[in-house]
């Protein structure tokens, strides 16, 4: 099965987006004729694996290398760099080129910035005095479709960069990506944003519409009806909780990267010592599509049922005489066997992980913190984790969760935990603490926490959650309904107005705007009526709500959105846009910075 997802059933034409990106990349390769060494920055390489097959690159005379400071090992005289316009990547180019110069090697260098040239990056090349040796181009890859309903802007550092460093490049990038989508699918008439970054993106998007208008008269009805922008900052609670859907757990324990996991072959039942294998995970796998968003407990049961029924069929097969059509049926079922085996292996691995006391303890503690009732127990638990020197990321996750739900810790506790942390993990983590403090994730208490109010008002903790037949999104965390998705639930249903009081308790401003043809003349109410009518028509397709998470989204949240989308009476298809798929782990990791 391919890692490149199948997009045929996407509610928007994602295939054309992907084909466009493919074509642009191939054109870059074609324009530089002959054999060449293509050097890709590894993270970009991951994104590209969702767009184009490596074999296709090789057809265009490419020797593939990963960007590093090591001298380039190639006989090619043409070196083509393909990299994100990140300042810290420039030093690699510099060291590569300087190395060639010192060896007297003469090469042609081409640098293609993704998604566009950056003055600052070129400045570095200028300062290093190699700018004149390099031909510079752009590869405008702004959006990568991950699934039929998920787009990623592939900005894994967006959250940290804008929260800690104040570098808002990613916000422009997001606005540009959405604006590019509007060129294909029409101007989105309704925009709702919550959070500082989101409101800014909505603002930049409006500016772009003024600067480079999408001609709305060409399109009869815009395909995307509403855009909901949400800052990760608004809800940092959800990603810090352990995800309990099948896909979420896979990500927590095995790290899903660009739609696949890499794991020990032994887990998949292949006995090859120490060999890693890559398992693609996307909706092209029918079984995975069926179970990815379910609570893991339920997944185990489903797999068991399926295996049992197959076993039954098999025994019937060997004992009784069968008609041809029954045989056919059986063979068809057999076709799904590799998928069954794959997921049974993965599920088995997960269940060994989830039954570990450390995980259960962590899960328990997460719920205790979210409940927000037992401060001391939580404090001691975290202190103990630090004393035991448990993996730093795990500690940080709980610490962040704890700090946010209490809107910071009292100074005494704050300093104490910081000191214990530095003592246990080393003084180099002063920078990590500094980052977390700047981002407001782990800080001194400065006001009374309103978490309990929020929790109550939005019904975030749902008792008696039936994970097998869920009637609420809370099933994805076995009892906790993700705050982010609750907000979206409201935003889709009735806009921000009814929950304005709650929104004010959450970080950042919120905004609601009308754009395009609807921007003036019509009043809000008539628009509601009009849009309700248009929602249902047009060849039975539902209109679309694009939900964009600025700072990342977890698989569990996507699962919850899909659950909402599948509910009866839902008038919209929900599509997710995100800076990157994240988990508490990857999110916390971006803040870890050693001074050294």
């Amino acid at each position, binding site marked *: 099965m391919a890692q490149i997802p199948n997009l045929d059933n996407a509610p928007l034409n994602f295939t054309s987006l992907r084909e466009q990106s493919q074509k642009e990349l191939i054109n870059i390769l074609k324009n530089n004729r002959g054999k060449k060494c293509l050097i890709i920055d590894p993270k970009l390489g991951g994104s590209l694996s969702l767009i184009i097959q490596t074999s296709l690159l090789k057809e265009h005379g490419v020797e593939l290398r990963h960007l590093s400071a090591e001298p380039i090992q190639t006989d090619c005289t043409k070196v083509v760099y393909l990299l994100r316009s990140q300042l810290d990547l420039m030093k690699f180019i510099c060291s590569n080129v300087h190395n060639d110069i010192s060896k007297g090697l003469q090469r042609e260098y081409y640098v293609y910035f993704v998604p566009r040239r950056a003055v*600052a990056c070129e400045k*570095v090349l200028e300062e290093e005095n190699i700018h004149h040796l390099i031909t510079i181009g752009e590869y405008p890859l702004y959006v990568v479709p991950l699934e039929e309903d998920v787009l990623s802007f592939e900005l894994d550092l967006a959250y940290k960069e804008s929260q800690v460093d104040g570098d808002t490049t990613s916000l422009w990038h997001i606005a540009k990506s959405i604006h590019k989508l509007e060129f294909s699918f029409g101007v989105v008439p309704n925009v709702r944003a919550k959070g500082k970054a989101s409101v800014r993106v909505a603002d930049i998007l409006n*500016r772009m519409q003024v600067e480079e*208008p999408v001609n709305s008269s060409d399109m009869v009805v815009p395909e995307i009806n509403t855009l909901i922008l949400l800052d990760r900052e608004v809800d940092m609670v959800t990603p810090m909780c352990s995800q309990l859907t099948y896909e979420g757990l896979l990500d927590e324990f095995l790290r899903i990267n660009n739609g696949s996991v890499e794991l020990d072959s032994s887990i998949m039942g292949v006995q090859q010592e120490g060999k890693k294998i890559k398992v693609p995970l996307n909706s092209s796998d029918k079984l995975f599509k069926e179970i990815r968003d379910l609570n893991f407990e339920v997944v185990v049961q489903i797999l068991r049922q399926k295996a049992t029924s197959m076993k039954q069929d098999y025994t019937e097969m060997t004992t009784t005489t069968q008609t041809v059509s029954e045989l056919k049926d059986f063979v068809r079922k057999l076709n799904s066997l590799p998928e069954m*085996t794959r997921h049974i292996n993965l599920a088995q691995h997960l269940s060994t992980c989830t039954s570990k006391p450390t995980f259960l303890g962590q899960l328990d503690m997460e719920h205790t913190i979210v409940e927000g009732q037992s401060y001391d127990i939580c404090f001691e638990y975290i*202190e*103990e984790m630090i*004393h035991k020197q448990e993996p730093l990321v795990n500690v940080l996750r709980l610490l962040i969760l704890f700090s946010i739900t209490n809107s910071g810790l009292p100074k005494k506790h704050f300093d104490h935990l910081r000191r214990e942390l530095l003592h*246990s993990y080393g003084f180099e983590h002063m920078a990590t603490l500094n980052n977390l403090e700047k981002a407001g994730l782990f800080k001194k208490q400065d006001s009374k926490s309103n978490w309990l109010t929020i929790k109550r008002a939005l019904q975030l903790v749902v008792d008696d959650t039936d994970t097998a037949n869920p009637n609420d999104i809370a099933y994805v965390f076995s009892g906790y309904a993700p705050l982010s998705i609750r907000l979206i639930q409201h935003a889709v249903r009735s806009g921000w107005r009814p929950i304005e009081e709650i929104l004010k308790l959450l970080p950042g401003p919120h905004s609601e705007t009308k754009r395009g043809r609807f921007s003036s003349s019509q009043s809000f109410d008539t628009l509601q009526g009009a849009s309700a009518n248009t929602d249902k028509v047009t060849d039975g397709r539902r209109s679309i709500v694009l939900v964009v998470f600025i700072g990342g989204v977890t698989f569990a949240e996507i699962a919850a959105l899909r659950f909402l989308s599948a509910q009866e009476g839902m008038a919209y298809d929900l599509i997710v846009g995100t800076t990157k798929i994240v988990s508490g782990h990857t999110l916390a990791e971006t803040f870890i910075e050693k001074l050294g």
Partner: protein
Amino acid sequence: MANVSVAAEWQLLGDRYYRKPELYQPMRWKHIDLNRNKVACAPFGGPIALIRDDSKIVQLYAESALRKLRIFNSAGLLLSDAVWKNPGGRLIGLSWTDDQTLVCIVQDGTVYRYTVHAEPLEPNLSILGREHFDENVVECVFWGNGVVCVTETCKVFSISDFKNPMPVRLADPVAAAAETEELPHCVAVIEPQYTMSGNVEVLLAIGDAVVMVEEDEVQPLPLPPGDGPLQKMVVSGNGRFVASFTHDGRMAVFSTRFERIFEYQCESALPPEQLAWCGLDSVLLYWDDMLLMVGPSDEPVRYLYDEPIVLIPECDGVRILCNTSMEFLQLVPSSTVSIFKIGSTSPAALLYDALDHFDRRSAKADENLRLIRSSLPEAVEACVDAAGHEFDVSRQRTLLRAASYGQAFCSNFQRDRIQEMCRTLRVLNAVCSPEIGIPLSIQQYKLLTPSVLIGRLINAHQHLLALRIAEYLGMNQEVVIMHWACSKITASSAIPDATLLEILLDKLKLCKGISYAAVAAHADKNGRRRLAAMLVEHEPRSSKQVPLLLSIGEEDTALTKATESGDTDLVYLVLFHIWQKRQPLEFFGTIQARPLARDLFITYARCHKHEFLKDFFLSTGQLQEVAFLLWKESWELGKNPMASKGSPLHGPRIKLIEKAQSLFSETKEHSFESKAAEEHAKLLRMQHELEVTTKQAIFVDSSISDTIRTCIVLGNHRAAVKVKTEFKVSEKRWYWLKIFALATIRDWDALEKFSKEKRPPIGYRPFVEACIEADEKGEALKYIPKVADPRERAESYARIGMAKEAADAASQAKDGELLGRLKLTFAQNAAASSIFDTLRDRLSFQGVS
């Protein structure tokens, strides 16, 4: 009858009719004698440049002795003039390029260029280049955008494109050794677009021969014997034929490879003053008062002129400029012939006739129509087409009325044909009016394209008409408005900025998406910086606005705009600009007040300008940030073994950290950081000492907890305790560390001893955990009973698989929920593992693994 009078004006050449409608009569100019002047007329109804010919002796009347370059439109309306006092000797040739620049070449090879407004275009070029400055140009031949010059020593030079003028010397037509003083009789060029090589080919008639000169070779051409020497040559509009006049008075047409196609014996052996192609069908020869049109048939047409004329070849005919009029000599189009030819009974002629009857209310109209019913569409088409070829408005109208009359009776005629023709004719009539003076035939108009026509109009500052035409034809008006705005700025140096801005904005707003930045850039170039600043304010595209603001020195506004746009790349652009321009302190001051710029600067500087960043933090009083930087540097020193030489105790690393500590201590809010830095320095010292005493380099850069563990693992308990007390490690942490360190080295006795030292502050659970993790259930059992909380006890038992004990403990805790959970875990664990095992077995049949 009207029809007859039309055809009566035609002349028959062979089997084709020619006509010569008057375009302008009289010309608007007064007292112009073409004979006294050198004349350059641009094709496509372009302007006419006149300058007194200094190679002729003329009588000056009441005019200045100074020569004047005068530029007229085709109707003779003066557009502009300028005094000609250019040095460089006699004017050899002048001509208009495709983009209507007047190019004048003088004797010494200098090329002067003028706009239609007679403004000189700097810089002047020399076609001869520096090495041949002493040559003299004697002849030059122009084409579209290029020119070829021949010097008196018979060297050939060329500029192939005036847009990018690069003088090139072509190969010498005469061998250097021969040194004949003979100059070529005549010169002609084949334009690059018609040659195989894509470079110009020059035909020179030298002596009895004709040679073709290219950039690097000379080729003799096989001129039929007896034809040379040629007195005059001219290449046809499609670059495939050469018309020439031989020494013995014959007009001969050759292919460009000099195969003779046709010849005509003229009455005079004197070469004509002018020789020109009329379309591709006939050749015009002009002597003093006679114009002879020679076609493929034997009998030429003669026209007599009692005044001098200039022949202006067009793609579909020749314009004839006289002192008092301008005519257009053309082949009569076939549609026109079919309607107006005397005695024509073609459907089109009958339709035209029918309209006439209709107008006179004669029933014959219907009769006519019935006659041509089946071919009505062709008839309509012919009338539409013929209308297009007319210059006379009333005749255009009659023909179009005939077409529309016919159209009413035919169902399947493309209805927009007539509309389209009307639209085209309106444009043509508008530009043909004497005020504009661009007479174009429909064929020329199509070849020229409407957008080029609009370009020419705006060049001639006919903005209003250009705008109307653009609007009328549904074309983009941006070009027109943009050009207008720029011209307006140039022309309005007396109007104050604010007023001019109003005037400009009023028009600019007509066109959505127009670049205000481009107009502003123009204003700036004209020295109106304030106006530029006001204009750029209206530019919606920040990516255009910001660079311009920088170039007009409005850095602060640029920074504001860049920040507002949200495009960090623009902010960087401004940032680097200011950085370069201002003193560091001023620069720091500027960005400190702008959070986004400041943060981006810090991000950039963190990567690549460390020292400068330190300066920034120091000058803005952010000492803690400097401290962080120093602290970071201390680690980099640690990674670099060369830098940490010297006594480790007082090494540069520790010094840096201490410096950081003292900076942190400057502000009260950073007492925590200050303390941490102090501790870090202390830790490094202790670790150095430990490495010295243990002779093992494993301590430096590990954490305090790790240091303690390492000490214990190494059995150095005294050192461990020392670290503990030095850093005031809490009892709780100490217990955890020691328990796990002892479990790591599996020193179970020591662990047990430790457990008995005193009542552990963290209880006995950690002991149990350490043992279980080391997989020592026996050891774990020693401590489980001591665990105080029955619930924890129960879970501990459960973890080592002692279900019964677990259940007991749980029941002791009177915790039903826990009990249930335990049962479930046991059941699930057992079940889960066995279930999965069996599943795997079940599925591994038939070779599927």
